[in-house]
């Protein structure tokens, strides 16, 4: 008799996504995590039908600032990152009409000058892009003055947040 596989034993796979990275999965035992969202955005998409999802950690709104980087590391920017995220998730059988988009991050310092509003510009770039494709944000916690960590559970599609300075995790999106 062959021994049970790690998945059969309920092994929980924890995938950590760094700044300017993305990961997708259809493994129900996996949790995708991204730490330290400052003015960066964490963007998760999840198709509850086929239980496929992905998480992206973008740093800046517009890849035109460095086209070489956009090719080598598309997940650094909102525009190139969203394309890469959707493409890989759809490759795993998700459908664009079914996916739920959740967003966290985009923190802002106290500034009215507009010189330092990278968090806001990230969010604007995202919503514009989603609108252009007839998509909208399902749940979000964006802006404010905090640092956030974001988790996507592939089995349920639940998205949890850990906000800096607050002891408890919260649900951003619960199935």
């Amino acid at each position, binding site marked *: 008799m062959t021994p049970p596989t790690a998945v059969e034993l309920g092994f929980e796979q924890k995938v950590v996504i760094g700044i300017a990275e993305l990961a997708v999965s259809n493994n129900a035992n996996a949790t995708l995590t991204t730490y330290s969202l400052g003015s960066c955005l964490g963007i998760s998409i999840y198709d509850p039908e086929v239980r496929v999802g992905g998480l992206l950690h973008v740093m800046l709104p517009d890849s035109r600032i460095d086209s070489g980087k956009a090719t080598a590391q598309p997940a650094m920017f909102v525009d190139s990152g969203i394309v890469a995220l959707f493409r890989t998730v759809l490759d795993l059988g998700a459908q664009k009409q079914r996916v739920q988009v959740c967003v966290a991050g985009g923190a802002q*310092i106290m500034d009215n000058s507009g010189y330092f509003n990278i968090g806001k510009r990230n969010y604007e770039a995202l919503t514009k892009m989603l609108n252009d494709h007839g998509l909208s944000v399902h749940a979000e916690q964006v802006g404010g003055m905090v640092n956030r960590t974001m988790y996507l559970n592939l089995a349920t599609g639940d998205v949890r947040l850990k906000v800096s300075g607050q002891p408890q995790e919260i649900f951003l999106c619960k199935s």
Partner: protein
Amino acid sequence: MQELDEFINTVKQLPPAPKVLPELLALLNRPNIDASKIVRLISFDPGMSAAVLQATNSAFFATGSPTADIQEAVQRLGFAQIYQIVCAVTGGKSLAPAQQGYGIDRGELWKHSVTAAVAAQLIARRKGEDENTVFTATLLHDIGKIVLSEALTKKYDRVIEEVEKNQLSLQEAEKKLLGVEHAEIGGRLLARWKFPSNVVSAVWFHHNPKAAAPSEKLAAYVYLGDLVAHFIGHGFGHAAFAMKGRSEALSILDLEAEALPLLMIETHQKMETVNALFALAA
């Protein structure tokens, strides 16, 4: 001023004085750097010597057979690397512990400080500024938080209230609730520890670089380094982003706003290599 010093005196757990750092910085800022003096200074501190040798022989730096000789370590790595290792060892000891009053977990203040210092150093390099001084001031900019953390532990709710309801910066909230704030305390500490006056002012006024005149340039480096660290996710604790925008920091250093996103990319890349070095200390 006297009240401030008294406040510092009442704090039970002051960070250890980084004795070697100001002396080493002074040695490196002389026109002719005397390697033998640097070797002597490091050798005088057994903990420091061990750390320097450990770093020299680590996979990250190792170039040949392991060495147990400080002089050879200094030769192999060069002054700039040695200085960074000394910074890592001295700074890490003070800045690594959790700061409960700020909602900062273990290692987070250190990560923030190193990221800020790397970002500020990148700008300094481009501007041809003295990198060691910029790196030092930025690395130690939040040292005052260590002193205030305990007093803030009981006032955490009120800090959040001041920030959210009254739109005070974290620094203003501290001043209102405690009568002192971390930047000022940090400046006082560094003065006690005999750091040069420009480093003292830059830390003291790192939330308002213009006020640091005549050291406004150094303060602007610290301010922007701090900002970039926050942006790329290395700013932690309650209301971590409750700091005022000071666009003059850009003009003081003759930088365009567009420089910031590029600096974020560069800092992020640089951190991947720097982490290997600074993991030694944390």
